[in-house]
């Protein structure tokens, strides 16, 4: 049964597609809007296969995506604003952070094309290359890369920013970067927004730096350790250190106060010897 809008009949396949999307929105815990610009159909297929275990990736026309979201419950229609360009919807029962991480892992570096805008300062680093001198030398120089011949190969003379963020990459530079295997672009599924139970998560929130998280754990563990030792809260993890601390304090006191105890004697002798050596040095007295 075809629904009609004006005189134009909406084909059954489109209605099925919208119904399926609406079901997915309802049946999965979360969904995300992703961009897949600059991905080949081949790459997209591969990613879809890799994701199959943990997520469902649906690629369809934006008009149908929009229609499905608009017709869904709650604040789901708010997600329509993130549909733009080549867009897919992704559905999963994981949490938004895991989805973000999963998709971040699909990103791979890619060469930048002539005329494309540099996403960040593109730098070539000083060092040797594997290219023999010849036409390549002038090609690199023509692209603004400082080169010289060293040991029979082309070498880059200095580290240099060859294209600033936001500037367009020239044909010559694009060729040279590609030869040097400098890949400034990233292709993959870029998560624009995730919807979970009324909340919309944006990438800046979803990006969790694991190194930073690890460092926080180190700091927390260190704070706990410091407190346990400084307040002498004895436990299995700090007993050795507390013993060492107590003993070292005792040795320190022994040396400072010159208490004659066997464990302190070698330090006292060493100290006396060092003092005598230091005085001899200061006085330039020949021993």
């Amino acid at each position, binding site marked *: 049964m075809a629904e009609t809008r004006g005189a134009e009949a909406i084909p059954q396949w489109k209605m099925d597609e919208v119904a399926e999307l609406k079901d997915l929105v309802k049946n999965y815990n979360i969904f995300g809007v992703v961009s897949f610009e600059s991905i080949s159909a081949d790459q997209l297929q591969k990613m879809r296969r890799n994701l199959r275990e943990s997520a469902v990736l649906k690629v369809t026309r934006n008009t149908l995506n929009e229609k499905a979201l608009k017709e869904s419950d709650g604040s789901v229609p708010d997600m329509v604003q993130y549909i733009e360009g080549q867009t897919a919807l992704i559905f999963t029962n994981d949490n938004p952070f895991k989805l973000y991480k999963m998709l971040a892992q699909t990103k791979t570096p890619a060469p930048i094309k002539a005329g494309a805008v540099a996403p960040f300062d593109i730098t070539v680093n000083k060092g040797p290359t594997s290219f023999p001198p010849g036409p390549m030398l002038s090609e690199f120089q023509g692209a603004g890369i400082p080169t010289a011949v060293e040991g029979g190969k082309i070498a880059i003379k200095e580290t240099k920013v060859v294209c600033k963020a936001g500037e367009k990459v020239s044909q010559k530079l694009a060729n040279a970067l590609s030869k040097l295997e400098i890949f400034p672009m990233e292709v993959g599924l870029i998560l624009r927004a995730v919807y979970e139970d009324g909340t919309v*998560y944006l990438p800046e929130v979803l990006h969790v730096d694991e190194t930073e998280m690890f460092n926080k754990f*180190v700091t927390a563990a260190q704070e706990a350790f410091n407190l346990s030792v400084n307040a002498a809260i004895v436990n299995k993890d700090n007993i050795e250190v507390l013993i060492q601390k107590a003993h070292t304090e005792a040795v320190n006191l022994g040396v400072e106060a010159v208490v004659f105890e066997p464990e302190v004697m070698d330090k006292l002798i060493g100290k006396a010897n060092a003092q005598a050596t230091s005085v001899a040095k200061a006085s330039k007295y020949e021993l």
Partner: protein
Amino acid sequence: MQYIYAALLIYKSGKEITEDSVKAVLAAAGADVDDARVKALISALDGVDIEEAIAKAAFAAPAAAAPAAA
């Protein structure tokens, strides 16, 4: 840092660090619980080796002392 302490506590208690266990511990401590932060923590834990962090802390202790010597 509350989230981190909660995770460390659960870890050392030999339990699994989940959204629920972290929330329960935070609530017991009287901390404000932010769902998104709990989720962020859990998701990041996949790539964080807590044992290593604890070991590093013990090892790093003297490093912390270094600036004092400057």
